[in-house]
């Protein structure tokens, strides 16, 4: 790992914290275009370990209705990559929380991958997740660019990913792996099924060299606690977006949301 990545905030997070990591996902520009920064600041203040900010896209095929709706509203409200990068720079002035940008490949391609990486790095972004970017394309075309800009790329794995492929992904990961809890689009669920638990156990038994976070379907204290038993931590997305849709961006309400999530399971 190059020296630039040693200073990466995500790397530092996973070095200092081995369990119970909570990452929160939300869509940039939702509910309104100006909300990206205050939400990030409130999440940092609430003690969240990492934030993932979604770059909205018109055709989010891996997302369920909640995140689809937030994407639509964000685009209509004027969110775009250039605006988001400026907002991240503002967030970065106020907090040192690790920041990941997550989105579909096309908006980033149109912005220009090189320009995106350079400006994201300058704004204070630590990692990028582009679920529809093929691994081969990343390795051949973008890995050096990411490294040169001190950005980590996280790959997804799902219950249908073969062990061979999980190991291949582990071998090219610098940071963490995003383990999707079920073969599904994003959304909320109240509890995990037995087959998901079996998958988490299988994953834990692989002894991967990188930490992994479990995401998709983590929506309450119970699912979060379960995920954290099997992984370095978990990612909450749709249920936080539901919270924002219902309660707005009030900092105290966001802190309460995070507090409730971290309650020990009954």
């Amino acid at each position, binding site marked *: 790992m190059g020296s630039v990545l040693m200073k990466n905030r995500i790397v530092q997070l996973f070095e200092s914290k081995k369990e119970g990591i909570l990452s929160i996902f939300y869509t940039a520009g939702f509910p309104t275009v100006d909300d990206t920064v205050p939400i990030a600041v409130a999440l940092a203040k609430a003690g969240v370990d990492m934030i993932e900010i979604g770059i909205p896209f*018109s*055709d989010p*095929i*891996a997302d369920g209705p909640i995140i689809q709706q937030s994407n639509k509203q964000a685009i209509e409200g004027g969110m775009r990559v250039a605006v988001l990068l400026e907002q991240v720079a503002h967030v970065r002035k106020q907090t040192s929380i690790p920041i990941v940008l997550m989105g579909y490949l096309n908006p980033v391609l149109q912005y220009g991958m090189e320009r995106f990486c350079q400006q994201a790095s300058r704004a204070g972004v630590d990692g990028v997740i582009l679920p*529809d970017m093929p691994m*081969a394309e990343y390795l051949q075309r973008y890995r050096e660019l990411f490294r040169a800009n001190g950005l980590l790329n996280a790959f*997804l794995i*799902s219950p249908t990913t073969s062990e061979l492929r999980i190991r291949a992904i582990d071998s090219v990961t610098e940071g963490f792996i995003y383990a*999707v809890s079920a073969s599904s689009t994003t959304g909320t669920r109240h509890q995990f099924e037995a087959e998901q638990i079996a998958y988490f156990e299988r994953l834990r038994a692989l002894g991967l060299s990188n930490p992994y976070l479990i995401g998709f379907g983590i929506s309450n204290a119970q699912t979060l606690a379960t995920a954290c038993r099997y992984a370095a931590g978990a990612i909450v997305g749709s249920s936080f977006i539901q919270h924002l849709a219902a309660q707005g961006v009030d900092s105290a309400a966001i802190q309460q949301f995070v507090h409730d999530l971290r309650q020990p399971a009954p």
Partner: protein
Amino acid sequence: MNKPRYEVDTQGYYGQFGGAYIPEMLYPNIEALRERYLAITSEPSFQQEFQALLRDYVGRPTPLYWAKRLSEKHGARIYLKREDLCHTGAHKINNTIGQILLAQRLGKQKIIAETGAGQHGVATATVCALMGMECMVYMGKLDMERQRPNVERMRILGTQVVPATSGNMTLKDATNEAMRHWINHPTDTHYIIGSVVGPHPYPDMVARFQAVISEEMKRQLIEKEGNPFPDYVFACVGGGSNAAGAFYHFLADEHVQLVGVEAGGRGIDSGESAATTALGKPGVLHGSRTLLMQTDDGQVVEPHSISAGLDYPGIGPMHAHLFDIGRVTFVNVTDDEAMKAGVALSRTEGIIPAIETAHAMAALDQFEFDKDDVVVINLSGRGDKDLETYIKWGQY
């Protein structure tokens, strides 16, 4: 000098277009297809079953009809490849027969599909009924309204038609919903994509199943003209499956002029168009890198066409490549021109074409032919499903 490549390469690309841009949840399905589609479809037992169904069930070969009055009108020797005479009324069934046989061999129990005009949905519902498989078709809510007879045909065939209510509620949105369904049901379900779009190997697989169109054209042209090569082949292009089939066996014969006709909608400068080669630039949608109508921010632009089957903001990556290297000439015609051409064909030859197909007919006016030119138009579908649109348009 290297000869230009027309077929897909081993990585799934046509030049700079193609590939498989999919979230990890779909990777195992796409990988299994990629590894097995060529082996399975070249097995003798597959070919035997496929050919028998095309012959006895679909009604192939479809006629290549010399359109005498249309020829006189345009001053050329015009032939119509009668895909409209296929069972279910369009070329779409060539592909659904192929894919359902493939799905069976992959051990899948359920089928999903997207549909625009409903022709692919009906063709999928039909083969699912034939094989006794459970079928679910996603269709944009707007398309369900403007292609109501096809919705009911699917229901009669025992298929569940699910309205897609996101976006413009047309083909793009139906495709999004079908992909989401597949992500949620990856192991027991096969997704029958209806056009030469989607992640590799879909574009190549669908093109191969549709290639029977140009294979027959060549044979029939030898019979009728003593020469397998026409001067022109015309086909309409939404995603581009009928065009892929009509062009396929002529791609290497560079003296054959291939013309793809896109939906200009209300005109390419009107902001309400689906003419992707005129308005698009390279981007990634529905699993492949292709030409795409999009904003500077990379948000996909909602297309417009009077024809539900052409109302799509992209084209298949193969067509993007053929456009890029200049092998296929792309033109576009407006809603109005297409409707007029549909009525004109009805009155000249007694054939009411699908509005998609009417676009290909309308493009004839943009060309000046020599009287000996042999021109083949792929008559991809019949107009029964479009009666309401014809009635609403009213100028006949």
